[in-house]
C-alpha cells in the first residue's frame, strides 16, 4: 500500500472510532441517566481516547484479520474508560457504580461491534475507493438505524414512564423516569384509572372511534368510484382532474380553519360531530384518491375485460374482480385515513366545545387547561397512541402485496 492509502485508512479508522465512541457513550449516558434519575456525564477526553484506541485496534484487525481478539479489546476499552475517569466510570458517584461499570462494558462492546461491522469491507491489502465507500456506507447504515430508533423509542419511553409515575415522585425529581415498581397491585396505573373514572376518557375513545370509522367509510365511499373513473375511464378533463386532486394540499389547514369556523357556526354545524364528518373526509379524500388510482392503474385492464366477456356488467366486474384484488390498497388507504382522523387535532380543537362529544386529542388537550398533573397528560397520550399501534400490527396482514401475481404474463 502507498503512503497515501495508509493515510486514508488511518484517518478513516480513527475518525470513525472517535465519532462512534461519542455517539455510543452519549446514548448510554443518557440511557443510564434516565434509568438512575441522575445526570451521568463522562468526560470528552475519556471518550476521545477510547475512540482513538478502538480505531487503531480496528486498523490492526483489518490488516491481521484477527477477529479472535474482540473479547480482549472489549475488556481493554472498558478498562481504559474506567482508568480515564476521575470518579466512577460515568463521573457520578450518586449512581450505582456497578451499573456504571456494566455501562462501560456495554459501551465498549457496542463500539467494537459497530467498528467491526463498518471495517469488514476494508482490507487486508489494498484499500480502493469502492471498499472505502462501502465502509463509510456501513457506518452510515448503523447510524441511521440507531438515530431513527432513538427518535421513535425515546419519546414513547418518556411518555409511558411518566404516565406510570406519581405526582410526588415527578415533583421530587423530574429527571428520574423510573416508576416505583414496588407498589401494591394496580396502583401504578392510577393515572389511567383516574382518566377513565374522573375524566370521561372511555367516552372520548368511543367518540374518536365513531368519527374515525365514519371518516374511513365516507372516504372510501367517494374515493373508490372516483379513483376508478380517473384510472380507467376515458372522459374529457381526466388528466386535469387527476393532476388537480392533490392541489387541495397546497392550502394549509390553518388557513381553512377560520373561514370554516365562521361558516359552520352560521350553519349550526360547528359544535357537532356531523361538522367533523364533513371536514375530515374532505381532507383525506385527495390522498385516498391518489393512492387508489395508482393501484387501480396497476391492475391489468384485461382482467375486467375478461369479466365483461364472461357475462358481467361493468359494475359486477368491478365488484367481482377489481375490488377483491384491491383489498391491500383499500386496507392501507383505510388505515391511513383512520390514523389521520384519529389523530386530527386542529379542527377538533376549534370546533368542539361540548365535552360529551370530545374526540381523544381534544380530550387530552382539555386536561392541560386545569391543574391536571403531567402524568395524566402522558397517560392520555398513551391511551390515544396504543389503539393505532394495535391496529397497525393487526392490519399488517391485509397489506400483503403481489396479489395479482400470476393473472397475466408481466
Amino acid at each position, binding site marked *: 500500500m502507498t503512503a497515501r492509502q495508509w493515510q486514508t485508512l488511518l484517518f478513516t479508522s480513527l475518525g470513525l472510532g472517535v465519532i462512534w465512541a461519542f455517539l455510543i457513550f452519549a446514548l448510554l449516558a443518557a440511557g443510564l441517566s434516565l434509568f438512575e434519575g441522575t445526570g451521568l456525564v463522562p468526560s470528552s477526553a475519556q471518550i476521545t481516547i477510547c475512540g482513538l484506541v478502538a480505531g487503531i485496534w480496528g486498523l490492526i484487525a483489518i490488516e491481521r484479520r484477527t477477529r479472535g481478539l474482540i473479547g480482549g479489546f472489549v475488556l481493554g476499552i472498558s478498562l481504559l474508560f474506567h482508568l480515564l475517569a476521575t470518579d466512577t466510570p460515568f463521573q457520578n458517584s450518586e449512581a450505582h457504580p456497578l451499573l456504571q461499570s456494566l455501562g462501560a462494558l456495554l459501551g465498549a462492546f457496542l463500539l467494537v461491534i459497530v467498528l467491526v461491522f463498518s471495517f469488514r469491507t476494508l482490507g487486508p491489502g489494498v484499500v480502493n475507493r469502492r471498499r472505502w465507500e462501502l465502509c463509510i456506507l456501513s457506518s452510515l447504515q448503523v447510524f441511521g438505524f440507531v438515530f431513527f430508533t432513538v427518535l421513535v423509542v425515546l419519546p414513547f419511553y418518556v411518555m409511558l414512564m411518566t404516565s406510570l409515575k406519581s405526582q410526588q415522585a415527578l415533583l421530587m425529581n423530574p429527571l428520574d423516569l423510573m416508576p416505583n415498581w414496588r407498589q401494591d397491585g394496580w396502583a401504578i396505573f392510577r393515572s389511567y384509572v383516574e382518566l377513565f373514572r374522573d375524566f370521561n376518557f372511555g367516552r372520548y375513545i368511543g367518540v374518536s372511534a365513531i368519527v374515525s370509522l365514519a371518516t374511513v367509510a365516507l372516504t372510501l365511499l367517494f374515493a373508490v368510484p372516483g379513483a376508478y373513473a380517473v384510472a380507467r375511464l376515458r372522459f374529457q378533463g381526466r388528466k386535469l382532474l387527476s393532476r388537480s386532486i392533490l392541489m387541495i394540499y397546497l392550502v394549509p389547514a390553518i388557513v381553512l380553519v377560520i373561514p370554516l369556523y365562521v361558516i359552520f357556526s352560521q350553519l349550526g354545524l360547528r359544535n357537532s360531530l356531523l361538522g367533523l364528518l364533513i371536514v375530515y373526509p374532505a381532507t383525506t379524500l385527495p390522498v385516498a384518491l391518489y393512492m387508489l388510482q395508482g393501484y387501480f392503474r396497476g391492475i*391489468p385492464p*384485461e*382482467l375486467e*375485460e*375478461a*369479466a*365483461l*366477456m*364472461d*357475462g*358481467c*356488467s*361493468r359494475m*359486477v366486474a368491478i365488484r*367481482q*374482480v377489481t375490488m*377483491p*384484488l384491491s383489498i391491500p390498497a383499500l386496507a392501507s388507504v383505510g388505515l391511513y385515513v383512520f390514523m389521520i382522523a384519529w389523530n386530527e387535532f386542529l379542527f377538533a380543537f376549534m370546533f368542539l366545545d361540548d365535552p360529551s362529544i370530545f374526540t381523544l386529542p381534544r380530550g387530552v388537550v382539555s386536561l392541560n387547561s386545569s391543574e391536571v398533573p403531567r402524568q395524566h397528560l402522558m397517560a392520555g397520550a398513551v391511551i390515544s397512541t396504543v389503539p393505532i399501534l394495535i391496529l397497525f400490527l393487526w392490519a399488517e396482514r391485509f397489506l400483503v402485496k403481489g*396479489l*395479482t*401475481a*400470476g*393473472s*397475466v*404474463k408481466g
Partner: protein
Amino acid sequence: MAGIVLRGVHKSFGEVEVIRGVDLEIEDREFVVFVGPSGCGKSTMLRLIGGLEEVTEGQIIIGDQDVTGLPPAERSLSMVFQSYALYPHKTVRDNMGFPLKMAGEPKEQVAAAVKEAANVLKLEPLLDRLPKELSGGQRQRVAIGRSIVRAPLAFLFDEPLSNLDAALRVQMRVEIARLHRRLRSTMVYVTHDQVEAMTLAHRIVVFSEGQIEQIGPPLELYENPANLFVATFIGSPGMNILSGKGFGEGQFRLEDGSGLKTDRTLAEVAENADQMGIRPEHIELDSEGPVRGKIAVVERLGADSFLHVDLEAGTTILVRQNGNSSLEEETNVRMRFLPEHLHLFNVEGKAVTKNT
C-alpha cells in the same frame, strides 16, 4: 353456434381512424384468422366484435341478431386474451366456472361443465390451484377452458399463443386445431404469426391500415395474392419483389436487362406489369438460366438452405434449396424463375390477373 357479419364497420379513437370500413361475413363453424402487421387494426376489430370497443359506424350481426349496441355480456361470445387474464384470486376451478356462475347456472351444472372442460384440456390435477402456481402453458389452457365451458356462439382469440415459448406454441397450436374439430364452432383468431394463420385458418383475412386487403383460404392467398401487400406479408421468408417492365408476348424485363418469359401470354396484361414477384422456392439454379447473380450469403437450416443472391442490378433475392446446399459464397450463379409461379403487379400494386 352462429356466423358473424360485419357491415361497413368504422372505428375511430378521437381523430385517429383505426378501422376504415370493414365488410366481412364469417360463416357458422368457420375458423377465420385475422393477420396483419402491428397497428393494422386486427385486434381492434376483434374487440369490436366482442363488444369491448364500440363501433363508430357500421353494424355487427351475430347469428341473426344485431349486436352493434349490446354490451359484451349480452353477446354470448368467449374471448381468450394474449395475457391469459385469469382471475388471480380465484382457483382454476372457479376461474373456469365463472362465466356459468355469472349466467346463473346451478352449482351442480357448473361443476359438471368445469369437469368436462378440464377433462378435454387435461387440467383435472390443477383444478384447486391458483393461477400463480401454474406455468405459462397451463395458464393459457385454463384461459381456453374458461372460454369453452359456457358453449358460446363464437370464440375470439387475441394472439393467444404469443406469450408462450416456441415449443409450447407448436403444441398449443395443435391443441387449438383439435379443439376446433371437436367443438365445431365459429372461431375468430388474431395473430401475427404466419404459421398459426396458415395452419389453423379456413380463411385468412389480411388487414392493413384498418382495411381488409384480401380474404381467402390460406393457400389461395399464398398462391394468388391480390396485391403486393398480401404477396409480401404472407409466406416466410417473404416473396422476392423485383422492378422491371412488362413487354408484349408475356415478356418481362428486369432492371438489369435480363428478360423473363411469363406464362401470362396476353400482351396487354404483361404490359401493365411494373413489378414482379417470385417466391424463394420457385427459383431454380440453372447454368442456362436468364438471370445472373453472385451468392452473398448461404444460410443452411438443415432441412433446406437459403441463398442470398446479389443480382447485377443491385437487388438481393432469396433462393430456397432443399437440403444442405453445397454452394459456397462468392460463387456466380445463373437462375431460372419458374414461369407458372411468377406474380406480376401493376403500378398501384394490384396483381395483374392470371390469364392462362
